[in-house]
Every structure is written in structure tokens, then in C-alpha cells.
């Protein structure tokens, strides 16, 4: 999977879970500050991402995923 494909997949999840406009989702965007995803929605995003991409994202890793790019890199490395 390319980084763009992972980003697109995350955009779908973010729209579904937190109502984020997919056009706003880009690697440099911060989940909290730019996309207004709160800590509980972030958990839902992570759970949905695990299912969608077939990866494991443990609780202690979630706090390191500050930007969409962080999540893309983590998923890319795991898959």
C-alpha cells in the first residue's frame, strides 16, 4: 500500500468516526489541532484503522500519533 492509499483510507475513517472532511486530511495535519479529533475519537480512529489495515496499534503507541503522517508511517511499517 502506498502512503497516499493509507492516507485516503484514514480519511475515510476520519469522516466516518469524527465527521472530518476528507479534503482536509493530509500528512502534515495534526489530529487534535487541525482536524479537531478529540482523545476518544482518536481511539475510535485507531480501532477502525486496525481493522482496515490489519495492523496492531497498542494503547501506548496512540499518543505518539500526533499527525496523519505519523499514523501513515506507523501503519506502513507494520503492514
Amino acid at each position, binding site marked *: 500500500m502506498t502512503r497516499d492509499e493509507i492516507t485516503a483510507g484514514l480519511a475515510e475513517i476520519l469522516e466516518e468516526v469524527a465527521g472530518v472532511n476528507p479534503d482536509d486530511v493530509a500528512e502534515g495535519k495534526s489530529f487534535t489541532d487541525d482536524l479537531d479529533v*478529540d*482523545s476518544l475519537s*482518536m481511539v475510535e480512529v485507531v480501532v477502525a484503522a486496525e481493522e482496515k489495515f490489519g495492523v496492531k496499534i497498542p494503547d501506548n503507541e496512540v499518543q505518539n500519533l500526533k499527525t496523519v503522517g505519523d499514523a501513515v508511517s506507523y501503519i506502513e511499517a507494520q503492514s
Partner: protein
Amino acid sequence: MAGSRIVAMGHYQPSRVVTNDEIAQMVDTNDEWIRDRVGIVTRRIAGDETVADMATAAAGKALANSGLTAADIDLVVVATCSSADRSPNVACRVAAKLGINAPAAFDLNTACSGFAYALGTVDHAIRAGAARNAIVVGAEKLSDLTDWTDRSTCIIFADGAGAAVVTATADDEPAGIGPVVWGSAPEKSDAVRIEGWQPYITQEGQSVFRWATTAIAPLALQACERAGVHPSELAAFVPHQANARIIDGIAKRLNIPDAIIAKDIVESGNTSAASIPLALSKLVERREVPSGAPVLLFGFGGGLTYAGQVVRCP
């Protein structure tokens, strides 16, 4: 083998209503944030009432609603994690105040899953012939365990009690309390803590949220399956009132669009073991669920522990 059923419910809440705006005067938070994150608008906070006082008030109402008398009761079980006194236990205090003579009486602590654990235990006792008529209570005074300077927890927890009167069913009568699905996730024991003397409740919110929104729905479906009730038949779902977004997350996975989803958390906050009987008692009092209709109860919380069962609405 004869089973058991809930005959009546009762509940008690302290009179003092605490709004989000009041909490915002104590810690850096606001009404919108609290509503959005946990779904609480108001909560009830006790004054002088002890856990035993609240448990007694709820149990007394349930007993009055049941048509039974104190003389009929032979088992009292109280689920609580916040009673300050170690002895006498809360169950004995309830029995003494209600004039119940010589019942088996004990407290049980599995934190927020306590009521469903207690209901399962009472059902088993009745099935085993060790009791005939029982009072099951969930009662908490979490305000005693709340750090009122910690904005991540003091917005959540509250006080109250709910109680059920449970009685044996006749041999030819269907059981009104389905098989309990219970267990724990001890590897996550650090996620909710009330540790040491004069403790405060602390929790890892994201970790608890993740566990509750992913692990609980499949267990709740197991409880339906074991009771022989299809989820689409459920009249109501009464989960532990932990957080409105956890409730929504579990309900979504259960796919029960026609069932009433109890959201007493909005006006009562998170009252741990008291939250399920409190919410169920209010549904019964408002006649929102027909008598005999299947209701799924599911508790989850500190331990981490969980328990749930399908019951027939009294």
C-alpha cells in the same frame, strides 16, 4: 430447575444536583466540553448520606414495590466499591434498617460491573435452593473517592443507589434472569484504580474507552444468545452508565436500533455499581418498557471486570 426473576425495582438519589457550571468553578473545564466528552449534564452528590443510607432507601422502595415484606427476604447482596466501613457490611446495615430477620447478607465489590455480578450471584443462590427472595442493591458514594481538583475524573463520578427484589420462579414459569456472562481482563488492572487508604479514583481514560467499546459488545451478544433472545427482540439495553460515548459505541456494535438505550448518565453521572439498577428502576417507574419484555443489562469497569445478563422487565 426453577430460576428467578426481578419482581420490582427501587432507587434513591441525593437531592443535591450539581451542574457542569458548578464543576467549572472548581476546575478548569466547561459545560460544552463535559457534555461532548462524557455526556453528563448534571449529577447527584450526597451530603450526609452514607452508602448504607442510600442502599437502604433504594432497597426499601424496591421492597415496597414488590408486594413482599421484610419477613419474606432471606438474602441481601450489596454491590459497592465505595463504602467507607469494613464492618458491619452494607448488606447487614440494610437488613437491620429494613427489619429483615437473619438473611444471608454480604457485600460484593467488582466496581462498576457490581450490580450484574450481584444479580448473577443471587440468581445462582436461588437456583441452588440457598435463597428464595432476595434484595440486590448497587450503591455508591463516589464523591468520597473523587479528587475534586482533578478535572479528568471529578466531572464524571456521582452518588446514588438502585435495588431489585428477586424471587424464585415456579417450576413451570420461564426464568426472568438469563444466564450471566461474566469475567475479567486482569491484565488491564491498572486502567481503573481506587488504591490505598482514603484513595481517589484514577483511570486511563483512553484505555478504558477502547476496551469498553471493543470488548463488551461481543460479550453482551453472548448474554443474549445464552438467554435465547435475539438482539432485535430486546426492548431496552441498560449498560453501565460510564460515558455516553461508550454507551453509543457499544450500542452501535449491538445493532439494536429499536431498543431503548438507557442514558441516565445525562442526569445522574457515573455511579459505578449503582448505575444499572438506577437506570433500570427509572425505566420501570416511567413504564417505558412493558412488563415481561427482555432487557439486556451489562456492567463493566474496574478490575477490569464485566458481567451482564438478559432479564425480563418487572
